């Protein structure tokens, strides 16, 4: 075997994995958006409640989580072999498999495939992978119009906005904002549109129906791919996916290489885990599966684009690779106290919340997303919520250990460690700290980096005696 070196990270200059500013600054701005905070508080609280209720119905939920985790760990341990099996099966069934090392390659492949059909428009099923690589921008640059058909994704697209949640990309919008976006940007919209949800949904439906019936090419992602049979699966709630996956002549699916499952039977576990953790449904309303091409039924040309874009680099890290187990249910976002307050845009990447904090820095290399592993209090709510038991807090701690550290912080930490190794130095430092507090008056602000504390909180009164002094004098 030849050693090919460290696998490449997702390249810079393409895709949506890097933000414009570090998390703390972006979060500070986002916290001031009271409309967004109200929308998010309402939406996440509702999903949490719904999901919690249907999960409580299953006596074997913890066993299902363990099974999901074990299947994914097995997949990661033999990913190359499973991918080759998938390629063989898809090809035998009449599909064509393409390998894309990164976002640029994937965008080129999809653009070329669409061009070859002669179509200047594609309909799209909501997909994180195509958001990650900024496929829509690449298609537009090539004169091809992508139309998002998931309602929330359509709202984001028409609003020239960015998704802020994995499952509900327009979670930061409320219905009056959606009405304004539709009035401004939806072709042929009725100007007397109200903000009544059924009215808004009907407007989107009317617009999308025409598009479904007149577009010959669709682009999708995939929730699962079965190596054993070459079957692809997409689960969704609105039925738009079913339209995209069955009506057009050509279907192009872009899928991250980690989405693979070994056998058909494995779906049994994931089709129970995903809807309950994700939308709080017992079963997702639409499950579409297809294997290659079926003559006379559905798309007659099927292309599968297998996307790496940094995933092999994640796989190479034995601790961090658990991030590849993710089934994009977004349960970790919905329970995250940080996400609930800052919203998704603060994370800079299309993957926000706890999963984003561990996935984005690993896909891009830690230098490009160094603040994300710190965007968590390590409260652990995400770990408990994750249907495949990804130990997100431990991966955050692991990534913090690799992150570049500010020079001053490094010095403070090294000194603290040296003092703490020596009980006598430690006791002396305790007394010195007390002295420093007597000199600096109580309630007065501390210098950075401690100023963040005193901006909103008082410091405790320094006690007359440390515990160890009390014990010694006892």
């Amino acid at each position: 075997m030849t050693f090919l070196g460290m696998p490449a990270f997702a390249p810079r200059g393409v895709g949506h994995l890097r933000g414009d500013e570090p998390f703390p600054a972006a979060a500070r701005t986002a916290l001031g958006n009271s409309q967004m905070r109200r929308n998010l508080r309402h939406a996440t609280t509702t999903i949490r409640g719904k999901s919690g209720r249907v999960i409580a119905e299953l006596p074997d939920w913890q066993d299902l989580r363990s099974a999901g985790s074990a299947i994914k760990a097995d997949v990661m341990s033999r990913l190359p072999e499973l991918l080759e099996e998938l390629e063989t099966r898809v090809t035998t069934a009449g599909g064509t498999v393409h390998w894309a090392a990164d976002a640029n390659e994937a965008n080129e492949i999809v653009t070329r495939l669409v061009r070859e059909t002669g179509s200047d428009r594609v309909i799209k099923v909501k997909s994180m992978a195509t958001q990650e690589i900024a496929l829509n921008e690449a298609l537009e640059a090539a004169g091809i119009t992508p139309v998002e058909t998931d309602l929330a994704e359509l709202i984001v697209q028409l609003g020239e906005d960015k998704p802020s949640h994995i499952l509900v990309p327009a979670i930061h919008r409320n219905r009056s904002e959606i009405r304004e976006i539709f009035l401004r940007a939806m072709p042929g919209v009725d100007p007397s549109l109200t903000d009544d949800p059924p009215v808004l949904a009907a407007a989107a439906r009317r617009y999308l129906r025409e598009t479904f019936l007149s577009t010959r090419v669709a682009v999708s992602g995939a929730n699962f791919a079965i190596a054993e049979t070459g079957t692809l699966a997409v689960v969704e709630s609105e039925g738009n996916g079913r339209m995209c996956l069955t009506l057009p002549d050509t279907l192009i699916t872009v899928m991250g290489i980690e989405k693979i499952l070994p056998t058909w039977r494995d779906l049994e576990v994931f089709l129970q885990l995903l809807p309950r953790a994700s939308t709080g449904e017992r079963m997702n309303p639409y499950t579409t599966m297809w294997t290659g091409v079926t003559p006379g039924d559905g798309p007659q040309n099927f292309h599968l684009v297998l996307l790496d874009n940094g995933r092999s680099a994640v796989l190479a890290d034995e601790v961090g690779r658990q991030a590849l187990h993710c089934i994009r249910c977004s349960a970790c976002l919905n329970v995250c106290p940080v996400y609930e307050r800052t919203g998704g845009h603060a994370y800079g990447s299309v993957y926000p919340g706890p999963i984003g904090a561990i996935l984005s820095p690993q896909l891009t290399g830690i230098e490009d997303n160094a603040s994300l592993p710190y965007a968590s209090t390590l409260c652990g709510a995400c770990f408990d919520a994750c249907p495949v038991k990804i130990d997100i807090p431990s991966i955050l701690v692991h990534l913090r250990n690799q992150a570049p550290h500010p020079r001053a912080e490094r010095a403070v930490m090294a000194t603290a460690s040296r003092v703490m190794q020596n009980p006598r130095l430690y006791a002396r430092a305790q007394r010195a700290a007390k002295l420093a507090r007597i000199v600096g008056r109580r309630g007065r602000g501390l210098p950075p980096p401690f100023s963040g504390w005193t901006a909103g909180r008082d410091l405790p009164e320094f006690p007359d005696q440390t515990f160890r002094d009390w014990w010694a004098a006892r």
Partner: protein
Amino acid sequence: MRIALFATCLADTLYPQAVKATVLLLERLGHEVVFPFEQTCCGQMHINTGYQKDALPLVRQYVSTFDPYDVIVAPSGSCVGSIRHQHEMVARSHGEAGLASRAADVGARTYELSELLIDVLKVEDVGAYYPHRVTYHPTCHSLRVARVGDKPLRLLRQVRGIDLVELPGAEQCCGFGGTFSLKNAATSTAMLADKMSNVVSTGADVCTAGDASCLMHIGGGLSRLRTGVRTVHLAEILASTEIS
């Protein structure tokens, strides 16, 4: 029983009353408490901020200090969580297999206060008296790392004179997160604001928890806003009697 006390650096320095209360409570229940002077810090701040190499000597310090004892107690779910779930990992990732297995072993003998009382000493009613309106905040690390469950509440329910009121959104983080409160001060404050309004909504005079760190955070906010609500460590409530 002979119980070794790990004060934790934070409580030793800033919340000695919580550690003293732990001592007085265990002695009142008829146990012998020892305080090994070589102890300092469990290294959690270093580990959670990304300085495992600097934490390694602190892990070694903890393990060698407490290895001689069968039962170790700390009045902190967070430090106990770190000792039990991180010490072994830190030692192992630095190639110290021997230290790692000793750390796992000492970790398994290290208990958070409510665990020690209920699981080891088999006592729920510690004979405490505390005539105040109290609400309990289950800290994230006691809940989801040390996994103490409802043990603190079971102990509090037995306290005489107490008016124990439920905290809305109790299981939501207070926003402390160690260095998170410095690195992400704005987000931390937003979380704290919600925690404080929940605390205030209960009408409690006292907010209690099993971690001095979170209490320092919540208490710092409650004090800044002059809410009049005090923060008191769980050990202090359990140590209170009619005579004291």
